[in-house]
């Protein structure tokens, strides 16, 4: 594992972005509940949860991937597995 470069900068960048997104989500919690309540009258609001899920999966997904790589957890190289 040690011969690999650990992606510390990427982990910090995506980690910060992820934390900011979660803070925004929880701080505006009431607004999201309000939008969900209004969806029956204003159908286009259904897109909000879908869009939020995609945005979070991009930033938090990249963060968690880099995080475990920084911790030294990497996949076996193709062809090296199943020893």
């Amino acid at each position, binding site marked *: *594992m040690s011969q690999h470069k650990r992606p510390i900068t990427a982990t910090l960048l995506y980690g910060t972005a992820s934390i900011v997104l*979660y803070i925004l*989500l*929880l701080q505006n*919690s*009431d607004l*999201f*509940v309000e939008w*969900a*309540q*209004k*969806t*029956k009258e204003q*159908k286009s*609001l*259904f*897109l*909000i*949860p*879908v869009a*939020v*899920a*995609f945005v*979070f*999966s991009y930033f*938090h*997904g990249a*963060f*968690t*991937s880099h*995080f*475990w790589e920084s911790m030294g*957890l*990497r*996949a*076996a190289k*193709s062809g*090296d*597995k*199943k*020893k």
Partner: protein
Amino acid sequence: MENSLFIDLNLYNTLALFVVGFIGGMVSGFIGSGGAFVLTPAMMTLGVPGIVAVASNICHKFPKSLVGAMKRHKYGQVDVKLGIIMGIFAELGVIHGKHVMTDIKTEYGDVGTSLYVSVVFVIVLAVVGSFVLRDAVRMFRQEKTGGMEAPHEVTKLARWVQSIHIPGTMMYFDSLKARVSVLFIVPLGFATGMLAATIAVGGFVGVPAMIYVLGAPALMASATELVIAFVMGVGGTILYSLDGVVDIRLAMIILAGSLFGIQIGAIGTTYVRDSVVKFVMGLIMVIVLFSRFFYIPGYLSKLGLIAPMEKYTIDTLNLLGDGTLMVALTTGGVTIIVSLIKGMAAHRLAQKA
């Protein structure tokens, strides 16, 4: 909160959802599905109404599956074409499955649906779970005597399926290394969706179907299931979101934990053999099966089929059932971590040698 559908979040329920999400994510990354059967009851225990729990669970499932599928695609384990085709028919299965549930509810009430879910649980998990587990044990024995990985064996059924040529419906699939008629994939996708709508874990049918009916290796089947879950999840989220019942806060909190988990599960697959994936899947299915035995007396009592039981007894049995589900998930999680640690250690040794 003005609307009773959406609970107030506190540190306790946030942490609880994060942890369950993490373990569920790990199992999903490894066997293609899992976690949902614990997350829905866990949310309901925290006071989330059933419909919101199901909707929020689905909403966390599709981004989780997307991240997992992309990760495993990097390792060359995903058959995107098979996943998308099965996913589309699974979506139809979900819609039909929801109708069946609604009809049963109208006719027999909540207890009727619970009993129906339990019967499906018992039949599917007993038949498929014991079959998968037996196959994993057979492969382990073969590996022990042979000293090397048991080769992927295409079952007789899959060989027959691959041998049938129906003009105009044939398609080549990378995972099968063969052409198969889409007409065989339609019922498998549909059944996966039906099961997802009934017990929330379509993968318990989808993955074994891809292995034993179509002839895909377990590693590829479990990775492809993530594509199916993504397609089903997007459709399900849109449907529930139109009704305004998705609690995006709950979904994203579960996602926070499950994305940490899914990375570990996906990485774990690169260090293990097909037999380990089958073993973890079979083991979880069999333990989940036992959880049903704790719920059934309560349903039978409510339906008047056995002598009435006290509420306290029913609640205790339900708690034992929920606990057993958690044991299933944790056992899967621990097995994955142990396999990963062992695999990484063996990999390091092999690199040094």
